[in-house]
């Protein structure tokens, strides 16, 4: 068993997976993963389905429990906590505290259907951050304006297109002011003609706001254009990683090459 530090030093990456393992029964989905994401970095995870890429995000969002290893967020352990100089499994309160630094956007949006776009964006700030309704309304309206949906703020999700719903979902996640934003195949459920409006928003978050993001995507073109670093996942590990130019232009790993040629052929 590896020794995990209680806390990471100053200047540490904003997210760090320290030999993280996830098993579902006898199936190992994530196999001793080490992964770091630096402040302001845009990291993209690509790979064949079943390679565990979405699980990485779900572990970080605490939607799945971790079988082994430690995830650190801003140097603080997420799934563990310190007690008497040792790391012990984290309690709910600790998890909630650390989890508050992470936001997530889902493939199927998961907007609250009984709330308007604006109410969706106000829910977290009012209920969790303790903002007044007026403050939350203002913050939500600004964010909906930023994603180009100022005129849709009083609409329920059922009345919005997929692209519009996903932009509301991004605004909702941003309203919590996360330190890291997780994007889980956010364009996979969208009609081709509206993908651009969502990727445009993500591009702006990266370039103008320098938001730290960890993204899983099947859109190789977008990954290549926007990422600071691309990780190719295979069998629950990172088989190869590097700047997009290198990974897409001159992949070293045989699996990466096979995957990329298969994907590019399909397109």
């Amino acid at each position: 068993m590896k020794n995990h530090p209680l806390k990471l030093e100053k200047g540490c990456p904003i997210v760090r997976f320290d030999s993280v393992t996830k098993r579902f029964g006898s199936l190992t989905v994530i196999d001793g993963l080490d992964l770091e994401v630096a402040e302001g970095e845009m990291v993209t995870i690509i790979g064949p389905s079943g390679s565990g890429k979405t699980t990485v995000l779900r572990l970080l969002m605490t939607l799945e429990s971790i079988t082994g290893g430690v995830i650190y967020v801003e140097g603080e352990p997420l799934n563990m906590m310190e007690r008497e100089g040792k790391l012990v499994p984290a309690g709910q309160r600790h998890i909630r505290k650390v989890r508050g630094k992470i936001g997530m956007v889902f493939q199927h949006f998961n907007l609250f259907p009984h709330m308007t776009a604006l109410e969706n964006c106000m829910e977290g700030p009012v209920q969790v951050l303790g903002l007044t309704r007026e403050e939350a309304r203002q913050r939500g309206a600004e964010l909906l304006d930023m994603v180009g949906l100022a005129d849709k703020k009083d609409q329920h999700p059922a009345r919005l297109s997929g692209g519009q719903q996903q932009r509301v979902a991004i605004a909702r996640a941003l309203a919590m002011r996360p330190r890291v934003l997780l994007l889980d195949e956010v364009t996979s459920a969208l009609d081709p003609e509206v993908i651009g409006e969502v990727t445009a928003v993500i591009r702006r978050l990266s370039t103008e706001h320098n938001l730290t993001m960890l993204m899983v995507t099947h859109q190789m073109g977008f990954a290549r254009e926007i990422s600071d670093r691309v990780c190719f996942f295979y069998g629950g590990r990172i088989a190869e990683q590097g700047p997009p130019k290198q990974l897409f232009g001159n992949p070293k790993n045989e699996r990466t090459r096979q995957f990329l040629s298969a994907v590019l052929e399909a397109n």
Partner: protein
Amino acid sequence: MTFSWHWNFVWEILPLLLRATLNTIIASVLGYAIAMVLGLVLALAQRTPWRVLTWAVREAVEFIRSTPLVLQIFFVFYVFPQFGIRLSPWTSGMIAIGLHYASYLSEVYRAGIEGVPRGQWEACVALNLSTRRTYFGIVIPQALPIALPGMGNYLVGILKDTPMLSVIGVAELMHTANAIGSEHYRYLEPYTLVGLIFLALSLPTAHLIRMFEVWVRRALGMEKAR
């Protein structure tokens, strides 16, 4: 015996029956209110991380659902006193009927809660909402439209089951009709009237429930299927 319908007798007993109708309505509404709240408790108790609690509540619900209501009414009224718990017919009746329907409603709630997509729960985690807010702000409002038809059926059901309270002497419609019948040796009019009154109560109730379902969906902005 020949068929004979006596209008004079009808006018004589109608005020008595109408007064009893009020008791039937009170018993239904009160019993249902108890069942609604208790049913939610039973449904949520089955969703805690404590397995023993889940198991115990599940078995209790199964037990209550699998035994006759009339037996439960007798039990509360006649057996509880042997343990020193002496309750009036009304209290006994409300406990028995409330608990009985709570077990049915807990299943309706459970189906409603399980009908809320998993992604909704995950969105709540991602927004770091408390468990309490997740249930009362997000899940229950969406489970409601799913649960409403079943809830409506049981409201009509509880109304039609209130005659069982007559066995322990609650002066609702059936009890009153029985008393009239045995006093006057005439059963045709009182029982016919009871039937008509029940019809007059349950048909509009069912209709109102359907209107309420539509209204709730609209109020939640969910008139369009997702």
